[in-house]
Every structure is written in structure tokens, then in C-alpha cells.
């Protein structure tokens, strides 16, 4: 049986609710920046949050590598070669008796460094070329777009192989080469954003106020076209990690003795019948990293899409 509230009680409750709503309203209004809206949407997406946790964990591991790795990754121990995972070596040892866990931790550091540097390079190039191409248009646009078409028509992996064959392997070369061959997507995204944003009234208003081209490009349009850049950068890290692993696996990326997931896998391939742990763990690490970045990237794509925002207060 429903209980009926007395008149006064009902009024009191309503007042309380109104007060609560008022309080929250003000709180939400204060935090109502776009970053906050994006964060709120991202938090609701469980897969993206899982990806985010993976990314943060990998970051911490990479940062704290010297503290948390149980052995020096390059210490050779001839008495304990190819030992299966056990108490002393949680992920076993390789054919020179080096601790696989330590090598993986340091290898993760390398992978992330390569991923971030490569994405940094490609984002900067992509944003620069995309923005001037979209903003100025005309022949400049045509030249840049045709150049992008040319770059895209060359299979990236073989291009990288060829370039590395010339300049030689090494971490800096890998970063530069991956970065210089993966900026085309960003560039097209930024160009598209610029094309639509440069006709918007707030840009015209800035022009009418006397703002110069540089101010309009960087201060007005660029900050409004960051969403696709962020998404493609996060997804790009995953791509760069895979590329780096593949190159190292082929022996032309990060060269031993420097540890990298790719060159641990190479050892695993050579010893696959007797030492499964050398293939499984670096493989899993690559899988988890790439999945983490992809999930976070996809989640960010949804969270940053203004069409999906619910700006309820």
C-alpha cells in the first residue's frame, strides 16, 4: 500500500530536491569546459577506460624500468640459458641466459619511445602540411595533395625497408623513418577540418578584427581541429609499435643487444620448439599494447565527436 506524505513533508522534500539540483547545476556549470565534457563521455565507455588503464600501466612500467626490472636486461648468465618460467626468472631466460622479464620491461620502454616519437614527428608534419593546404588552397593545396597521393601509393613497409637499408638500423633512424612515412592520414584529416572551419563565422570575425593568417591558423582553427589529430595520434602509436616490432623482428630495427619486443620474438622464432616463453610473452605484450591504444583511440573518437555530446545540465 502506498504511503501518502503529509503536505508539509512533501513540500520539504521538493525543496530539498530543488536545492540539490541547484547545487549540482552550479557545480556542473563551473566544470563545464569542453575537456570536462569529453572526459565525462570517455569515463562511461568501459572498453576505452580499459584501454586507458593499459596505456597508463605501460607508461608507468616504461618510466620505472630501472626500478622494477629484477635483473640487468643485458646480463649474460651462461649457466642458466633457456630456462623456463620459474621463481627465479618469472618469464624464463633466453639463449644467453638473460632474464626475459627484464628485457621485456626495457623493450617496452623502447617501443613506447619509438611509438611516441614517430607519432610526434608524423603529427607535426601532418598538421603543418594539412593546415597550410586547407587554409591557403589553390596551387599549394594541389601540390601537397598530389605529394600525399604519391606517398600513399608507395607501400610503406617496403619504403621503410629500403630507407633503412640505406641509412642503417638504430632507434633514431627507426623513429624518423616511421614518422616520415605515416603523416599522410593526419594531413588529410587536418586539411578537411580546415576547409570546413575556415568559412565559419568565428574565423571571419577574427579576420575582420584584424587577426593575421598565423594567428587564425594556430589560434583559431588549429585548436578546433585537434580532435581528429588526437584520435589518429593515439591510434598511430599502436601502428608505430607494430612497425617497430616488425622491423626489429626482421633484424633491421632495434639491434641486439638492446632489448625490444621484436628482437626477443626473433630469438623465440629460432628456439620455438624448445622455448615457447620467448615467443608468447613478447607477442602478448605487443597484442595488449596495440589493443590498449586502439580501444583508447576509438573511445576518444566517440568522446570527441560533438554530434554525440549530450549537453544536458
Amino acid at each position: 500500500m502506498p504511503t501518502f506524505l503529509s503536505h508539509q513533508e512533501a513540500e520539504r522534500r521538493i525543496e530539498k530536491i530543488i536545492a540539490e539540483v541547484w547545487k549540482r547545476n552550479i557545480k556542473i556549470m563551473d566544470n563545464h569546459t569542453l575537456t570536462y565534457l569529453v572526459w565525462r563521455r570517455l569515463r562511461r565507455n568501459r572498453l576505452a577506460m580499459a584501454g586507458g588503464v593499459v596505456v597508463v600501466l605501460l607508461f608507468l612500467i616504461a618510466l620505472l624500468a630501472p626500478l622494477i626490472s629484477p635483473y640487468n636486461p643485458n646480463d649474460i648468465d651462461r649457466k642458466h640459458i633457456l630456462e623456463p618460467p620459474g621463481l627465479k626468472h618469472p618469464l624464463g631466460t633466453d639463449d644467453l641466459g638473460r632474464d626475459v622479464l627484464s628485457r621485456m620491461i626495457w623493450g617496452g620502454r623502447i617501443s613506447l619511445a619509438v611509438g611516441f616519437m614517430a607519432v610526434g614527428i608524423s603529427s607535426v608534419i601532418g598538421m603543418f602540411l594539412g593546415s597550410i593546404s586547407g587554409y591557403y588552397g589553390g596551387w599549394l593545396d594541389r601540390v601537397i595533395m598530389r605529394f600525399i597521393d604519391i606517398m600513399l601509393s608507395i607501400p610503406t613497409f617496403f619504403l621503410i625497408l629500403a630507407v633503412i637499408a640505406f641509412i642503417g638500423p638504430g632507434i633514431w633512424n627507426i623513429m624518423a623513418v616511421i614518422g616520415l612515412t605515416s603523416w599522410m592520414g593526419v594531413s588529410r584529416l587536418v586539411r578537411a577540418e580546415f576547409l570546413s572551419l575556415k568559412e565559419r563565422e568565428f574565423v571571419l570575425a577574427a579576420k575582420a578584427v584584424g587577426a593575421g593568417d598565423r594567428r587564425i591558423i594556430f589560434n583559431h582553427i588549429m585548436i578546433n581541429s585537434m580532435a581528429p589529430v588526437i584520435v589518429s595520434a593515439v591510434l598511430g602509436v599502436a601502428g608505430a609499435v607494430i612497425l617497430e616490432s616488425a622491423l626489429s623482428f626482421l633484424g633491421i630495427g632495434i639491434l641486439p643487444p638492446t632489448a625490444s619486443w621484436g628482437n626477443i620474438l626473433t630469438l623465440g622464432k629460432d628456439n620455438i620448439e624448445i622455448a615457447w616463453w620467448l615467443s608468447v610473452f613478447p607477442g602478448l605484450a605487443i597484442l595488449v599494447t596495440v589493443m590498449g591504444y586502439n580501444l583508447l583511440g576509438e573511445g576518444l573518437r566517440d568522446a570527441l565527436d560533438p554530434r554525440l555530446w549530450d549537453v544536458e545540465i
Partner: protein
Amino acid sequence: MELLNVNALKKYFPVKKGFSGEQLWLKAVDGIDFSIEEDKVFALVGESGCGKSTVARLVLKLTTPTSGKIVFAGKDISELKGDSLKTFRRSVQIVFQDPFASLNPRKTVFDTLSEPLKIHRLIKKKNIKEACIGLLKKVGLDPDVIRRYPHEFSGGQRQRICIARALAVNPKLIVADEPLSALDVSIQAQILNLLQDLRKETKITFLFISHDLKVVHYFSDTVGVMYLGKIVECAKTDDLFHKPLHPYTTILLAAAPKIKIRGSELEVKSGDVKLKTQNSKLKTVSGDVPSPIHVPPGCPFHPRCPKRFEPCDKIVPLLKQTLDPEAKGRLVSCHLWNPY
């Protein structure tokens, strides 16, 4: 004194080629002339798509005209460069129609208002915040909103911010491109009053673009009626509303809901409205605006004109002073008033 003079202004946009391969042009603005006296309000009215907004952008030097001349304060604006362009930017400002698109969504009110002050180095750095607060007060906004982002405001508030931005540089001319049409009616009145107050206080000249005749009647001194990229009639506001000459103007006035204005108060006569709306049902313009790509030959209005006669589809009428004794000296482009 004359502040702005527009002479034979044309703006054609290239569009896709026709079947036969020849280049087609969208004639957004097709040879218009007008001038604005200092401290006066010139209104451009017309249906949507007749080229009003293009005129606004041309006057602000945001696009370059196909041909024609715009002279602002004695200088041809197509020749402005460097410092003289900067001075021009400081003297002419714009308020756009859509207050949701005309503020940068990633900038706070402070960023938006301080930008013109910083670009033109109008005041010392430490005084910028004060100046912004002063601007907000001028347009009737609370100084506390200075740290807020555009999406936290309503349409009317945003339009106030846009007006404040325009005022930041102390302009001589403000081009208001349908500043009210995206707003609720009650808010429209507030913004209109704000503009009216500014006009009284600051002696700013306005180029007021609108399709709302009652607003134009209330706010402007001179009116130009645009149709398909041309000005078909240009007159003092009272003359135009009292005795429209061009058939298009007549129909435009009859089609608008009637609200009579006495003094500065808006006063609706209920009996009148009924009568007039009944009338206007008979008088609305038949048909749609023809495409500005294929402008009809002769007078562009002739396919829809109830009073068309023999020369209308052959000879293009020019905007000139009529010799007709009933309306001597008024500018109209119609064969009825100007013998061809």
C-alpha cells in the same frame, strides 16, 4: 558626410559548367550602388539568397569583389595593405547572424574580447581585463561571465558578446548581418534596444542587413531593397514604408505581418492585423526567387511581377531617380516609374 560608398559592385561565384561546357556564374551581387552617411543606419532588405550577406562580406574586405569599388572614409578598400588595412579593420566591424557559429568554441569570453585589443595594441596589457569588463557592461552582461566558454550562454547572450567584440576596437561602421534573425522574438527586442542605445551613445554608423521589415522600419534611416543581387529601390525609411514604388517592395510590405509603430513603441493593432493578413494572403509574391545563375532577361523581377508590361522582359531597368511627379527624385529601378 559620406562614410561608405559602394559603386557598381559585383561578385560572381564560379559554378559548375553547363552541359555545353561554358562557365556558369552565380551572380550573388550584380552591380549595386549605395552610400551611407556618417552616423546613419542604412538597411538592406530582401528575401534569403538575394546577396545581402555577400554585400556584408565584400564591405568588410573578407572576399574580393569581381568588379566595382568600395570606398570607405575616402579610401578604396581594395588598395588597402599593411598599416592602412589594419586601420580599416579597426574602423569596420561585423556582427553575424548565427551567434552559435560566430564565437570560437574553445575560447573564453575574455580571450574573444581581448583579441582585438591585443592585435591593435589599443591599451596597456595590465588594463586589458578592465577594458573587457567595461565592454561586457556596455552590452548588458555580468562581468563574472568573463571566464566562461560560448556554449554556456544562450543565443541572446552570445549575440551580446559578439556585439561587445565588435565594439572593442571603437569602430566607425558596424555591419550587422541579420543580427536578430537567429534569436527568439523577446530576445530580438532586447538586442535591438541594445543596438539602438549604442547608436545614441557612440554615433556608430550601421549597415543593417535584415529580412525583417518591422525591425528595419524601427531602426534604419535609409533602406535599400535587394532582389537577385540588385538594389531595386532605395529610399528614406519613412518614404519607403509610406509609399513603396517598386512592385516588389509593395508586395514585400504587404506580405509582412503588420505592426504599426508610433514613436519608438511597438504597438499592435489587433483589428488591423486581421484585416491586413487577409489582404496579404492575396498579395504574397507568387513563385520562387529565380536562380541567380540563370537570371531572367530584362527586369529580374518580371516573372513574378503583377504589373509587368511590354518592355519588362526585354530591357533591364536601371536604378535612377524617377521623374514621376508623385515621387519625384526617389531611386527606383522599374519601367513603371522610369520611362524607358
